[in-house]
């Protein structure tokens, strides 16, 4: 995949996407499980243990994605 996104297969669970934010202390990883659930791993302290892990359903993930991609408009 494109610059700074690394994809890793997780057999039996799904796929993991590591998104490099271009700074050593911040990173986001997203695990897309085969059942549709997304695990959002946020690394903000430079440590290898995640600062926060958020479990999103497909619906919730789409909402977050729409806001991040600015395709969501207030009506």
């Amino acid at each position, binding site marked *: 995949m494109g*610059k*700074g996104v*690394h994809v*890793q*297969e*997780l*057999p*039996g*669970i799904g796929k*993991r996407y*590591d998104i*490099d934010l*271009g*700074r*050593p202390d911040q*990173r986001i*990883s997203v*695990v897309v499980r*085969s059942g549709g659930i997304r*695990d959002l*791993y946020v*690394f903000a302290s430079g*440590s*290898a*243990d*995640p600062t926060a*892990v958020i479990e999103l359903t497909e619906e919730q993930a789409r909402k977050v994605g729409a806001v991040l991609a600015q395709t969501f408009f207030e009506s």
Partner: protein
Amino acid sequence: MHVDLVGLGAVVLLAGLIARLGRRVGLPSIPCYMVVGILFGPGTPGPVLVEHPEDLAVLAALGLVLLLFHLGVEFPVEQVLGSGRRLFIAAAAYIGLNITAGLLLGLALGWGTSEALVIAGALGISSSAIATKLLIELHRLTNAETPVVLGIIVIEDLFLAFYLALLAPVLSESESPLELARDIAISFGFLIVLFIVARYGARAVGWLVGSREDELLAVLVIGLVVLVAGLSEEVGVSDAIGALLIGLVVSRTAVRERVERIVMPLRDVFAAVFFVVFGLSIDIGDFGRVALPALIAVFITLVANLAAGVIAARLFGFNQRGATNIGLTILGRGEFSLILATLAIAAGLDRRIGPFVALYVLILAVVSPLLAANSQHLARRMPDWLLRRGWHYVRDETISTSCTHLDQMRITETGVDVCAECVELGDEWVELRLCTSCGAVGCCDDSPNRHATAHARQTGHPIIEALTAGRWRYCYHDEVLVRAPIGRERPAGASPA
């Protein structure tokens, strides 16, 4: 015909409630189901909800069949065949150590050779369900060792197919070695037929069951699966392996994803019944007799797992935390151990296997999540020489990515700010990459000429560093981004303490 719906409903409801309570304290659901079966069965003093567990035999068999069928459907064939040599060695070490330990304990117990073979499998094959759930709940999905853990589990499932094929003839009552050889031949012949169907006949099977309506798809698939499982049993191969293989066949059809989705809730319900019925058949009074062997079994499984974890960590360049995480995450035993015990009891082997495996699974179910969650304490106590001589590890630190070629990094700074080859050709480039082995600077993969990658292919130099603000590093050999070092080399002359 009298159907005891009250008893069935009560135990299943209780099983679900207990599992829900168990979830709060981090217990896996399989042992919770089993405990309900044990507590409310005829073999235990106190209230008895199901007087005759054998009435539920069909439902339990359906649970066993669906468990293995679903395993076959979601089996990632391509990923396993594509996984590298290192993963196969790590998995072989894990399976070899655990199966051997189980076999030796089985022989030492002196219950019989067939019994020893069953115990080898029950101790050797871990629970995919428990390990996967642990990884999700402990927030370890992005850890470097997690793909290795999952890879080992998947290869274990593949091993299970061959193990079941070997076990079925041994469990059948063959009189002479000749008969045994014939049974093994039939068993493997049947396996090969199903493998061929999986390879070439998937389209036909897909056509047979592939209704556009979910309702009909479910009915057709369940019918097919139960039929194949039953036929397998008839030819003496055991329903378990028939179900697993028809799952592999279905996994190669176009309806795979729909089948996975539709069968999952059915599997969960009937598997719960299977675990409850297994518990119902256990007499709590037998636990005393098998307590010591079960404790010894737990201990040797722990030792074998940690040894396998260290071997995997050495292969992949992980630190102590990685080693203990691998060993302790795959510690849980569950569905396969109980399936094997069920097969053994059905074949008329020593009845002590039932309570022995039940107790073993129960102890590990409590112990393994606790140990996995606290792996850092053990990691801190593990000496460096176990992994790599002369290296000093940050023992208990979680590593997010790893690479085994850090020792080949020599150059991390350069004054060069052009891609010399591109300059010569008169081409443009986007970004620059530095080869950390020899200092060569080339253009990135978004540039037309991709000189950095070409250089790595030519020379075999593993790690490049991006000459950008982010300064990330990538290892071509391990195909990972290199982040925090997994350890640092001791300065020359330092004492090895």
